[in-house]
């Protein structure tokens, strides 16, 4: 019975947030709590000659100042490599810089004071003498032999490289009627969460227990990290992630500052709070993207895509992030290229290079926007070369909806996708013929509109082959404990977490359906390693697909328990009973037999009245790990309509369309909002967001005065439609949806801008597509047209 799965259930905790009753780590104050502030290197690279903390130590309110010598020994260094990335290197990292500083923002000292303000005043008095060295901030030449190194502890600037190829790729290019190509640059951007990173580490020397209140999406991962790196028994470490003000992948990495707060609390035996301010967030939160990609596509005369070849150079920080590495994004970039298409041949080369900037690592839609933008821009060129229109060339090349299972040229296994159905639906929604008529009419009036589309594949519900196989202690399974209270209400404690996306709401819907109660009777607990079972929590779009399935199976086990107990009570075969409307009912007629509260009352207060040997326990625990396909891929297509002002380079985003297939939809309201939020986080870096560095490795726009984030006024209406192709690997059939919007929004927008600029022969291949870059592209096209 699915009374509640599929319904637009409102997000219960939104009411609490609207009432100002959120519980964030940023707001937490504990008795005897100290506030931490970090002194950071202003230089991108250099050697620490001296750190003078004497004046700072005399400042009011200062309790302790740590440098590397007295803080780092408390923590085992971390190394951001994974075994399945063969040949990968990354030097060890610890909390504070020991000799070398590796990026502008690298923490070199930590001040603990009674208030943040006092700690900041003291930080101003710390004198750090750094002999600055030439930082590595450039592109491809940094990989040449003998190039100056970003990190002297690495043997070169090459962190990782890999190559994927099919045997016939060269022949495909040699025999192609057309080869289209382009070079792309994808700028750096960062997450800019509403609540910055926050941690309160609380070590109790009396019990030896460490409690870390941590604004993270992955509390179990951090329980493991803190236990191992600080030499504590795992059972003594508790991580609590209450309300989290946005995470987007940014809050699952290990950062120097959080490790510092834990180390300081262990040493001082007092709670230590660290909350990044907005300026620190820009120089310490992971950045995303930063890729230069050269791509080629081989196309037959009729528009059939034969092969792709890409070379991706991605620049990370001076070390790879831990524990998920900074190589996973590039790895996904080269594996997702051409994924929606039948394209049989492929070559993808990836180089991951160190440099003296903030680390890059996983952020919403890891690798997807890069692979999608490159693929879809080349498809547009292929369409132009072969005289096809954008819908026609995709219809010709997208994998047919009845051709599954399918293995991509890069080795991904697709269970069942719906590209052609999505394309057809998008065509109905956009009405491209009408848009072309309008475009032509407006051009005569000097108004330049364009539309673009982009098909995509999204990776969701990863199994243990994603990280576990590489030796990372990152769980691919999840756990739930579901129990019936004496009143007949239901409680579910589950390892997937809530950061505002509505995890708790969908879990309640799923459990409610298994137990025949209204979702309002199901309360859900998440985000505390002491009160919920261990699991992967939230990343890679796994909350609904894996967490939802875990809850479903746990709920069914509890249902069976309840029915067995009810069978004993009403003297009926449990097989003739089912749960509905808060009661046990006759399966055939629906006639009520016994209410849940009555079962709860008897099981809890009067077990003595039960027949001998009847199990009255109404709590079940269940863990579920994905089986079958290594990932549940989702798919979809997006469309963008823009108007470019060719005098100013400003782009007006007029409309955005998404057709998406995330399998079974548990809550259409939340799915649509995930897609909308994702689209905005895809359009942001396509037009606005960029971490700009100068040649000295200095971030030059590290505040919200200069770094542009997309705001409601710039965003178009986003119209969404769905195709539902449930996965057969689970009972629930849900796949993920959190990254779908981000995956293709920028690609569709880039194609739209280039469609608008087509009369000028101008073409953008760099993001963000700022007004200046658009004017430069127009200028370059004009020069080319008028050259002798």
């Amino acid at each position: 019975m699915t009374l509640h799965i599929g319904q637009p259930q409102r997000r219960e905790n939104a009411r609490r947030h609207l009432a100002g009753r959120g519980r964030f780590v940023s707001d937490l104050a504990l008795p005897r709590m100290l506030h931490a502030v970090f002194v950071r290197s202003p230089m991108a690279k250099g050697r620490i000659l001296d750190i003078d903390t004497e004046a700072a130590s005399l400042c009011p309110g200062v309790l302790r100042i740590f440098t590397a010598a007295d803080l780092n020994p408390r923590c085992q260094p971390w190394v951001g490599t994974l075994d399945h990335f063969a040949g990968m290197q990354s030097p060890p990292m610890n909390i504070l810089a020991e000799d070398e500083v590796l990026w502008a923002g690298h923490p070199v000292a930590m001040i603990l004071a009674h208030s943040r303000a006092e700690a900041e005043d003291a930080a101003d008095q710390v004198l750090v003498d750094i002999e600055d060295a030439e930082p590595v901030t450039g592109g491809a030449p940094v990989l040449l032999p003998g190039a100056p190194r970003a990190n002297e502890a690495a043997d070169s600037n090459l962190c990782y490289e890999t190559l994927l190829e099919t045997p016939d790729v060269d022949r495909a290019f040699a025999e192609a009627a057309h080869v289209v190509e382009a070079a792309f640059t994808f700028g750096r951007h960062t997450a800019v969460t509403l609540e910055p990173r926050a941690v309160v580490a609380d070590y109790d020397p009396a019990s030896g227990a460490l409690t870390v209140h941590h604004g993270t999406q992955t509390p179990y991962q951090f329980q493991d990290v803190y236990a191992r790196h600080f030499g504590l028994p795992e059972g003594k470490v508790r991580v609590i992630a209450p309300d989290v003000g946005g995470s987007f992948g940014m809050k699952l990495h290990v950062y120097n500052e959080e490790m510092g707060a834990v180390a300081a609390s262990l040493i001082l035996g007092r709670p230590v709070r660290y909350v990044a301010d907005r300026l620190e967030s820009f120089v310490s939160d992971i950045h995303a993207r930063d890729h230069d990609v050269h791509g080629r596509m081989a196309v037959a005369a009729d528009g059939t895509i034969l092969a792709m070849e890409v070379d991706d150079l991605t620049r990370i920080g001076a070390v790879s992030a831990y524990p998920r590495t900074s190589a996973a994004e590039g790895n996904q970039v080269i594996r997702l290229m051409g994924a929606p298409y039948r394209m049989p041949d492929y070559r993808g080369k990836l180089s991951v290079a160190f440099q003296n900037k903030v680390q890059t690592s996983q952020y919403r839609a890891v690798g997807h926007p890069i692979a999608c933008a490159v693929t879809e821009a080349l498809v547009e060129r292929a369409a132009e070369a072969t005289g096809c229109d954008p819908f026609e060339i995709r219809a010709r090349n997208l994998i047919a909806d009845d051709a599954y299972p399918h293995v991509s040229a890069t080795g991904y296994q697709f269970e069942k996708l719906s590209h052609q159905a999505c394309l057809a639906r998008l065509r109905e929604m956009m009405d491209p013929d009408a848009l072309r008529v309008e475009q032509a009419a407006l051009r005569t009036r000097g108004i330049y509109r364009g539309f673009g589309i982009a098909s995509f594949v999204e990776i969701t519900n990863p199994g243990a082959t994603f990280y576990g196989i590489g030796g990372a202690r990152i769980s691919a399974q999840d756990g739930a404990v579901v129990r019936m209270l004496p009143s007949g209400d239901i409680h579910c404690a589950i390892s997937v977490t809530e950061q505002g996306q509505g995890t708790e709401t969908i879990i309640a819907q799923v459990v409610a359906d298994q137990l025949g109660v209204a979702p309002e009777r199901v309360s859900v607990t998440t985000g505390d390693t002491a009160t919920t079972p261990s699991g992967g929590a939230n990343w890679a779009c796994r909350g609904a697909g894996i967490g939802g399935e875990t809850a479903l199976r746990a709920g069914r086990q509890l249902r069976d328990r309840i029915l067995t107990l009810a069978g004993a009570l009403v003297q009926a075969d449990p097989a003739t009973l089912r749960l509905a409307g808060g009661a046990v009912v006759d399966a055939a007629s629906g006639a009520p037999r016994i209410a849940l509260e009555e079962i709860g009352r008897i099981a809890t207060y009067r077990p003595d009245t039960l027949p001998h040997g009847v199990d009255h326990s109404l709590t079940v625990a269940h863990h579920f790990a994905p089986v079958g396909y290594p990932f549940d891929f989702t798919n979809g297509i997006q469309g963008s309509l823009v108007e470019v002002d060719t005098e100013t380079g400003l782009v007006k985003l007029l409309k955005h369309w998404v057709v998406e297939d995330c399998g079974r939809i548990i809550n259409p309201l939340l799915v649509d909002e995930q897609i909308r939020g994702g689209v905005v986080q895809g359009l942001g870096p396509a037009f606005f967001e960029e971490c700009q560095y100068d040649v000295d490795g200095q971030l030059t726009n590290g505040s919200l005065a200069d770094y542009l984030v997309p705001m409601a006024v710039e965003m178009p209406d986003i119209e969404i439609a769905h195709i539902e192709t449930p996965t057969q690997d689970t009972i629930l059939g849900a796949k993920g949806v959190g990254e779908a919007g981000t995956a293709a929004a920028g690609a569709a927008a880039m194609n739209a801008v280039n469609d608008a600029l087509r009369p000028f022969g101008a073409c953008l291949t760099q993001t963000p597509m700022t007004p200046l870059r658009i004017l430069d592209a127009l200028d370059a096209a004009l020069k080319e047209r008028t050259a002798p």
Partner: protein
Amino acid sequence: MKLEGEQFLDADPMTVWAALFDREVLAAAIPGCESLDQTSDTEFAAVVKLKVGPVSARFKGDVVLSDIVPGHSCTLSGKGSGGIAGFAKGAAQVTLTPEGAGVRLRYDADVAVGGKLAALGSRLIKSTAQKLTDAFFTNLSEILAVPETAGPV
């Protein structure tokens, strides 16, 4: 970041030249200068309080004069640390050219800033630097003008 400009000073070249090497004149002319010590004929140690947009800091640094062609030109290079606010370093080529009764001073500077100053202030740094430079020359002109107006002939 490149900064360049010129300023007409109503004084003879040697007076201007001497002023540029005069600790007291410089201390009075540099905006926000809290202390200036001459550590050798061609070296100064300075503490200067500056505000760039929202970042305010006390910079401690050294300035060295080199490539000295007396009465005509020299190079000033320096590096200052502003603690958590970041650092600034750079070099300026200063040239004096007689013009009528006075002298035209021309400077070409290459300045780099780092840390919070760069992250937060880069949009403001050029205008701030220009403002500080203008203030310096205004102060210098006023100091140089004093003897002529107030002193007996």
